[in-house]
């Protein structure tokens, strides 16, 4: 865990920016072979692609408080958390490209990234990962460690039965468990007020007698502060929390989403309030970093991401018959 505030904020900047660069490249890679006519199954990166541009604070400002031994479960939109959690970027990229050097040897794909070295997993079923984090928290407690488990979900997932069962279990057993709700206002095309009977999900903490936190306006600093408290409480055995952060989805639900359901100017307003830019300004203002520092950092990030793509692109595809392996260990 990083204790130094400056270091932490720089770390958060770095992770957010890495995720952003990573996804900007992914947006392009995904469109290869899909032009002029978009075909979801074509190109080097086929299948659904859910990007998290705009949602970076939710991941980085929480995960800065975690170590490799803490567990994170994520969703169909997992890149920003994976990157913050320190998932092997080369293998992750290779997995998304369907290569045999990928995290899952090309079997998982972008929605199914597993890196046990840093205790990261995700999945394509809404709500499905929450109980896994509860189970990890249970294991942490059984082993007598102070490790925590954090489940990241979207605001849409809060209305799944899995959420409720998991939260009750975590609270009942007083587990070191936190759920971060990334409220990006939409569950595909369904607006939050058409899916959720309460305005913010922190109030649902009352149903479990646990702590509920609300972070407004996608604020990386407030998310940092709140997450710190929740993680410390969890480590000390003070029980689970719900953190809901109001965050922004810049892109469609998946790439190729026509977004006809969405007000035309919504995204430009969100983009004008970009959390990475805001953090950068803050770092400069507080003289935690200079323009040169940031530039240097950005260069490093660029290189790291480029290396990952290079690795992925240059890796080999699996043999077709490899499909038959790894069902059982």
């Amino acid at each position: 865990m990083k204790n130094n505030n400056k270091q932490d904020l720089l770390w958060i900047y770095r992770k957010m920016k890495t995720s952003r660069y990573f996804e900007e490249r992914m947006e392009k890679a995904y469109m290869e072979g899909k032009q002029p006519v978009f075909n979801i199954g074509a190109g080097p990166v086929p299948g659904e692609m859910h990007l998290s541009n705009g949602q970076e604070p939710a991941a980085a400002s929480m995960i800065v408080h975690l170590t490799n031994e803490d567990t994170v479960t994520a969703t169909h939109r997992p890149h920003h958390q994976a990157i913050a959690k320190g998932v092997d970027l080369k293998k992750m990229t290779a997995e998304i490209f369907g290569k045999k050097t990928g995290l899952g040897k090309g079997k998982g794909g972008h929605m199914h990234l597993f890196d046990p070295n840093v205790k990261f997993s995700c999945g394509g079923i809404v709500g499905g990962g929450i109980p896994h984090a509860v189970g990890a928290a249970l294991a942490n407690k059984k082993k007598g460690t102070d490790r925590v488990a954090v489940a990241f979900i979207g605001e849409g997932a809060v209305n799944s039965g899995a959420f409720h069962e998991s939260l009750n279990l975590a609270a009942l057993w007083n587990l070191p468990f936190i759920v971060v709700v990334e409220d990006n206002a939409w569950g595909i095309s369904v607006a939050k007020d058409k899916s959720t009977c309460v305005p913010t999900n922190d109030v649902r903490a009352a149903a479990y007698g646990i702590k509920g936190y609300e972070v407004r306006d996608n604020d990386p600093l407030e998310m940092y502060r709140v997450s710190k408290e929740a993680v410390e409480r969890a480590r000390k055995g003070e029980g689970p929390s719900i953190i809901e952060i109001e965050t922004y989805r810049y892109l469609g639900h998946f790439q190729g989403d026509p977004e006809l359901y969405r007000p035309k100017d919504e995204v430009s307003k969100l983009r004008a309030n970009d959390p990475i830019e805001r953090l950068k300004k803050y770092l400069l203002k507080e003289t935690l970093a200079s323009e040169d520092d940031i530039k240097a950092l950005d260069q490093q990030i660029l290189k790291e991401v480029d290396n990952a793509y290079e690795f992925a692109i240059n890796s080999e595809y699996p043999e077709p018959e490899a499909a038959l392996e790894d069902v059982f260990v």
Partner: protein
Amino acid sequence: MEATKEKTRKLTGSKAMAQALEQEMNRDESIFVMGEDVGKYGGIFGSTTGLYDKFGEDRIMDTPISETGFIGAAIGAAAEGLRPVVELMFVDFHGVVMDQIYNHMAKIPYMSGGHVKLPITLLTAVGGGYSDAAQHSQTLYASFGHLPGMKVVAPTFPHDIKGMLISAIRDDNPVVFMFHKTLQGLGWMDQLDASLGPVPEEAYTVPLDKAKVVREGKDVTIVGAQMMTVEALDAAKKLAERGIDAEVIDLRSIKPIDKETILKSVEKTGRLVVVDEDYYSYGITAEVSAIVASEGFDYLKVPIVRLAIPDVPIPYSRIMEKFVIPDAKDIINAVEKMVTA
């Protein structure tokens, strides 16, 4: 009543679905649609395209991601005399709601001694082939076909899609209506000839329990559903060039299976290949093989051949996914071996 010729034009699978829904909803006010993204979005796979604008949010209802809640609610609403059409976006998600489907929707009519009717149509998208990986590419035909109390259909061509959807909606029993993503004729997926076809303008019905011989032949019977029917037809064309005359049966109904059509065909051909985009064990290839091995045993000249997804989750990477899903080439290989054997 099967369709008449007049006013027939070509529609995609998704347009055929939307048209069926529209015509039925105009006819019967008790019909309404619930599901995730069925409203303004028009259904992720286009099943409700345009309907939100026509019927409004009271009859085309977007729901939270609460499949147990809203599919369970369809049961309660149906018991009160409404006719819900509910969409489970991907069949892969059935695991979060299977209890409502198989223990309640499918059994309440029976447990009530026939006193409670549940006229529910459950729409759900099936199929892979576009690298959507293990949790979004399944067909799961047999997971539904195995369990009593539901009619389960999986039409292939737009004409049957419309006609069977209308039959499903009019049926007083629960019907699981599986539509194949690739056969919806969506602009953003593989373009397939089979996904565009003649669809009469007026409302018509196609029976829910009848297979269809979509190509006549005398040397071998190939049974498939949806994309496997398409692959079988493709294989048959190529086999014909090599002098092998294959009969292709489009199953259409997963439960009940139309035994008569299959047995009649095997009686003629003496050879059977069953091909399935679902998992191998306990799947369509098992059930169809068993039907013939017990009720048409004497017709068989050679062992039955089963082609299906081997018992592995569906891998993401294209080359591996292609390897596990049967295609025309696999069918041709199997048939050639059989015929020369």
